């Protein structure tokens, strides 16, 4: 969706490319089973995040492994780096707290390298695995079906609802000529409330549609 000039300049959430991490490809790592990738990523993150102290050797090997994976996947490096930079500020923010204690610089560097490696690992997995395959992997790993159904629906309707809220904001912006902070808050609250009411009505229609396609409570 290309936002129209002017009014829609505040509608950054509509950047779908940022919300869909999957980069289509046919490389060997794309074709690996999702369960293997998920379990592998979990193992990787467990080792990197939980190994004691600054273990630079481990971090170097881990970085090498991730770079190799990225190279095999043939996803554009720019895309991967952009995604990494987008998620990095959260980690830096929390890591800054550690600078305020004695010997904090070392702790800061350790935290930063660990979290960057883990972030990059999941950036890579989500770039090379379809979300539906990830969900199937979760089911295979015995995550309760209710939770997986709920994740699937969340992912499916996330985009629908973001667009809906974007349309509501645009409609509002085209009718609101004065602007104040309090008014902004009140109107946004109304938008959120309407979004909830529409969501709960939509859920009823979705249920009817699911039943019409033969859905049962324990899933099929």
């Amino acid at each position: 969706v290309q936002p129209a000039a002017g009014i829609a300049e505040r509608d950054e959430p509509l950047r779908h490319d940022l919300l869909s991490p999957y980069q289509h490809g046919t490389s060997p790592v794309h074709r690996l089973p999702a369960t293997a990738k998920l379990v592998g990523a979990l193992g990787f993150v467990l080792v990197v995040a939980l190994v004691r102290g600054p273990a630079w050797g481990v971090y170097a090997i881990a970085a090498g492994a991730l770079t190799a994976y990225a190279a095999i996947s043939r996803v554009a490096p720019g895309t991967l780096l952009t995604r990494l930079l987008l998620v990095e500020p959260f980690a830096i923010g929390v890591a800054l707290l550690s600078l305020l204690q004695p010997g904090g610089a070392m702790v800061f560097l350790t935290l930063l390298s660990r979290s960057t490696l883990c972030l990059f690992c999941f950036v890579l997995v989500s770039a090379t695995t379809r979300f539906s395959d990830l969900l199937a992997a979760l089911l295979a790993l015995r995550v309760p079906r209710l939770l997986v159904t709920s994740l699937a629906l969340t992912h499916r309707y996330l985009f629908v609802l973001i667009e809906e809220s974007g349309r509501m904001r645009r409609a509002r912006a085209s009718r609101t000529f004065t602007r104040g902070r309090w008014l902004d808050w009140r109107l946004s609250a109304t938008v959120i409330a309407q979004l909830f009411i529409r969501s709960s009505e939509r859920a009823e229609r979705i249920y009817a549609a699911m039943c019409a396609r033969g859905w049962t409570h324990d899933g099929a």
Partner: protein
Amino acid sequence: VHIPDGFLDAKTALVSGGIAATGVAVAVRSVSRTIPASRVPLIGVASAFVFAAQMLNFPVAGGTSGHLIGAVLAAVLLGPSAAVLVMTSVLTLQCFLFADGGVTALGANLFNMAIVAPVVGYVVYRLASGALGNTRRGVLVGTALGAWCSTVAAAISCAGQLALSRTAAWSITFPAMVGVHALIGVGEAVITTMVVAAVARARPELIAERGIESPRARYADLAGYGVLISIGLAIFVEPFASNRPDGLERVAARLGFAQHAAPSPAIASPLHDYAVPGLGSAVASTVVAGAIGIVVAFTLAYLLARFLAPRGAAGGGNR
């Protein structure tokens, strides 16, 4: 705050993961037993709603902006167990898809934002709105108080987890996290209350039904979450709050020792003699400070509710 990977050590990650998994299991069981099949899709769509609502930014002072967290909003609109599932979906999706919040820290993040935040918020909401006779205004006062308390409670728990992992000292994380989140909580309270007020205007029955769960199941679940939250806070926060220098070492040693075995004895053991040594003037001053805080918070929440629900507003059995 979503804790990223690498900020928690093994014992904290394992313990919080275990508690969070138990809490989510309680919620899954409760929801699949008490919610009619026709409402199951609502859990997923409501998660998408919370996710989308979190992307709407509000201008705050000085060019910065904030967004809704939504735990208490979900709890007020859907009920506590449904809110636990909604927040679990949101956080899991953010973690796996957008690398927002670490995978090893997912348990800790779930504990803080999918269990502590909605459950604490819901309990405060029900107590406060019940005390005001479940009027429209009472619901709004309860929502405001619940939203503030839930934000601060989640921040305290997060500070404890970071300190227990020795990422940063408790003396730094506690004031930093709680100070910032006391302010964020005010914003969360205002926006959550305004949304609930708007829903109550448009669809009063959604508020009056108090969520989609059956009330009977709710109390048993709340007791279950209460036990889990107490265990969690006893492990994450109590060692620091009691000012006993050996508390951290003791918990660490016990948990480190018990890591291979079943985690349950390790969780229960730190509880037995903690409550006694701290009693005294420190407790009295804490109680006084807490009482003053509650009065101030209640007054603010009441003023907000009065502003949003003027006399004569329809529905909810007004006075």
